[in-house]
Every structure is written in C-alpha cells, then in structure tokens.
C-alpha cells in the first residue's frame, strides 16, 4: 500500500512537470504583452480573455469549425467502411493475390507524400474537386487507408475464424457474415482507427491549404495559421489562437478518453 502511494506521488509529480508547456500556453494566452515580457512564468494578474475574443473574430473560426467537422466526420465514415471491408478480405485471403494486395497497401505507409503531390493536384483539378469538401474527403480516405487497413488486418487475423464460419454454415454470404458478425467484433480496433485518423485529418494543415485556400471552405488549422502569421509578434494572441484551434479535438478526446484509451488497448492487442 505504501509503495503504491509513493508511486502515485511520483507519477503526479511527473504529470505536473509534463504539463509545464501547457501551463505556459494557457497563462500566456491570458496575458497582455507587457505581462508576458515582464513576468513570463507567473500566473496572469489579472487574467484577461481579450486575446480570445480577438482571435475568435480575426481568425473567423466559426465557419472553419463546420468545414473541419464535415470533412473529418465523412472521411472517418468512409475510412472505416472501406478499410474494414478490405481488411476482411486481406486478413482471410489465402491466395498470393491477397498477400500481394496487403503489401501494396503497406507501401502507402512508407511513401513520402511529396512524391505524388503534383500529379494528385492535377487529378483533383481534372475532376473539378478543388475547393470542395468532397475533394478533401477523397484525399483523406485514400491517404489514410494504408494505416487503417494495416490496423484492421492485424486485428482480424487475430480473431477466431469460427465466428464468421458459423454464420456461413447458416447460409449467409461473406457480405452478410461480415456485416452481422465480423464488423461488430471490430469495435475495439475501430475505436483506434477512429481516433488516429481523426487526429491526423483534423490537424492536417498543408493539404487543406493547397486544396481549399481561397475557396471559403478553409479548415481550422488553415484559419489558425493565417491568423498566427499575422500576429506573430504577440505571443498572447497567437497562443489564444492555438488554444482555440486545438480545443475541439482536445475536448472530444477528453469526453471520449475512456473509450479512446480502452479502444486503443484492446484494438492493438490483435
């Protein structure tokens, strides 16, 4: 008992030290420039929300929040559907084709995105999808599929085959067996897939800048960095912008954290 108590103290101390950058972020965002330069480490006295008010309006975060949410949510649904479907085949196929396709998907994890940047931009232009949510959704689905397929395939391989087979004996096709039996079993890894992809898509900055810049459909990071670029010399304002830009995803995580971490653990067990 005593040892657990000691460990608890140590871990809490570690967590407090770990949170130091966050302390700096939040206290600075509540200070004016004079306080920042004179008492950089002290608590804000008095704290002021002015920076937040300025950042919210100047960066026009309201509309960006909608864009980011639509793009992230639809991409996630597409990733989960396509990824789990493909993984079901890849994990169960015993042919050379199955293995070859799996390796082909894994290739996508190592390819630097710069390689295909220009041809992809041409393709998206030809499809008339520049400056649209649909273009971004297709992009994120494609770019994140390799990792999604990798996670799902690993998990399905570790599942006992009997679940699906039992359903098939009842005369169900693979499609029905997948929908009725396999997919529900994938819930833990789906949690992992969800979180990792959501984090990537929500935070991605360069692609939306490239595809959505000047379209009126900018996402949160694009708006935040346009704002940050403008007020570089005022740390308080910049940090308020960063807090506002990260808040939705951090809040989502904190609300769901029990499921996230649990899903993560059980998901990666496979």
């Amino acid at each position, binding site marked *: 008992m005593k040892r657990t108590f000691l460990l608890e103290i140590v871990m809490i101390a570690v967590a407090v030290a770990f949170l130091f950058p966050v302390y700096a972020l939040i206290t600075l965002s509540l200070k004016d420039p004079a306080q920042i330069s004179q008492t950089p480490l002290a608590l804000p006295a008095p704290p002021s929300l002015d920076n937040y008010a300025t950042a919210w309006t100047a960066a026009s975060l309201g509309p960006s929040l909608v864009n980011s949410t639509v793009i992230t949510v639809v991409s996630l649904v597409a990733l989960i559907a396509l990824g789990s479907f493909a993984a079901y085949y890849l994990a169960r196929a015993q042919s050379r084709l199955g293995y070859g396709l799996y390796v082909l998907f894994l290739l996508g994890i190592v390819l630097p995105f*710069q390689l295909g940047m220009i041809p992809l931009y041409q393709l998206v232009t030809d499809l008339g999808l520049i400056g649209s949510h649909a273009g971004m959704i297709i992009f994120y689905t494609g770019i994140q599929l390799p990792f999604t397929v990798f996670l799902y395939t690993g998990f399905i391989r570790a599942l006992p085959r009997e679940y699906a087979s039992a359903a098939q004996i009842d005369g169900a096709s693979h499609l029905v067996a997948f929908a009725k039996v396999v997919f529900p079993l994938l819930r833990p890894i789906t949690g992992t897939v969800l979180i990792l992809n959501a*984090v990537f898509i929500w935070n991605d900055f360069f692609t939306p800048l490239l595809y959505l810049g000047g379209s009126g459909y900018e996402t949160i990071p694009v708006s935040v960095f346009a704002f940050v670029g403008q007020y570089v010399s005022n740390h308080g304002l910049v940090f308020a912008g960063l807090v506002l830009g990260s808040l939705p995803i951090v809040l989502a995580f904190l609300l769901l954290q029990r499921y996230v971490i649990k899903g993560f653990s059980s998901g990666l067990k496979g």
Partner: protein
Amino acid sequence: MTASTPWRRFSSLSPSWLFALPALLVYAAVVLYPSVAGMLYAFTDWSGIGEDRSFVGLSNLAALFDDEQAMGSIGNTLLLTVAVVVVQNGVGLLLALGVHAKLKSRAVLRAVFFAPVVVSPVMVAFLWKYVYTPDPSAGLNGLLGLDVDWLGNPSVALWSIAGMVVWQYAGYSMVIFLAGLEGVPRELHEAAMIDGAGTLQRFRYVTWPLLAPALTINLMLSTIGGLKLFDQVFAATNGGPGYATETLSTVLYKQAFVFGKFGYSTAIALVLALFVAAVSLVQVYYLRRREVSQ
C-alpha cells in the same frame, strides 16, 4: 445481394477480392497513381513549374552522393530517429508501468500523458519554440534555472527537437504498451511471486517477453515517424542553425520549393521511401520471427 455470384462463389473459402476493391480504387487514385507518376520526375531536370524539362537519366541520384548537405542530413535524420525511438519508447514504457498500477489518479494520468498526441504537431512546435526560448527568465530555462540556447546552439538543437517530439508522442507509446501490459495474465505474476521473484525479476521474466508485440509495433511506428519527421523540424528550426537540424525531409522540401529543383527533390524522396521501406521490412521480419519463436 445474396444472389450476386461473385459474393457467393467462394463463400465457403475466403472472402472475394471484391471486398478490397473499393478501398483499392480510392487508394490507387490518391496514392499509387500519383506517386508513380511523380516518381518519373526523379529522372528529369524539371524546376517544378513550366513546360521546360528534359530527361536526365540517373544523374539526380548520382548528384545526391556528391551533395554534402544531403549526405549530412542523412546523419541528422538517423540521429534524430534513434533518439526519438529510444527515448520515446523508454519514457512510454515507464509511464505505462506507472499508470498500469492501481493508482487512484490513473485515469487522469493516462489522459494527461496522451493528450498531446491529439494536438497538431505544428501547433506543438509553435508552443515549444516558446518553451525553448533562450531567455533565462522564461520558458524551460526559467523553470529549471538554466541558461541553454535550446534551438540556437547547433550542438543542442537536434536533441531539443527530439525532446519536443518525445513530449508529444510518449503518450502514444504508453498507450500501446498499456495494451500489452493488460494482456499479461495476473496469475503469471502471482505464480512468479510465490516462486519468490522480485519486482525486477518479474518484469524481466514475466512482463517483458509478453510485451514483445507492443514493443514491435511501437518500434515500427516511431521509426517510420522519425525517418519521415518534417513538420516539427520545419516549424521549430527550418533546418538551422546553419544546417544543424537539416533532415532528409527538410532537404527534399527545400530542393523542391525553395531552390526550384523539383526533379532532384523527387530523387531524394525516392531514396527516403526506399530507406523507410527497407528499415520497416527488417523490423517486420524480426517481428514475425519473434512471434513464431514464442
């Protein structure tokens, strides 16, 4: 749906390849086709804009080996990767062991350590640029009473970047290790305790071997992440001071978009891809072998 033949035909064997088709189409359109088309630039002298380009064969690849800066950046890339892989996983493991114990605050602690993972790496770099201020009265220096030029001293900067990356992703490793720890049956520990094994011995002989799959996933993810690391370096130092933190990713970026040598940049990207693929293959090979031997 059940009537359509392809879905039914192999239903007693493996699922049909049609299951993979939708994903394959999107993946091919967004990743495979553009990457292959883009690769071809590696054999041209294209500047990145305009029609002017000619085929130059392998001379871009040859030029890479004479490029002092690019070769230097390979060293930095490897150092940074090794530092991140070792420290991030070491810290991640310790944190996992800590929050795996029956602590009252374990849920909060897990959330705290994992939270930075969900924030944009560019935003984290912005924040850490402030934390790493050389001002002795502010940031990390102010907290620790130090006077270190974290990002400005060429012999320190690379490690400062590694520190920032570890801060953000230690929680990621922690969660994966936690998954492994939760898979260790409690009975094994109890049995070992009855046999008189101490804490360290139990870790060495019971926990550690069962953490192997988690360790391998962690090693693979952090190695690939380290080798491809770009956002954090670019936002924190842009490769400086001088060339002290230039990595393969920043060099290939600069060749393409700052120097206007797109062809050469693509050649570097190809080399990076091969490099990452080779390293991952070796790791996967070891993963398989270890899992088989268990």
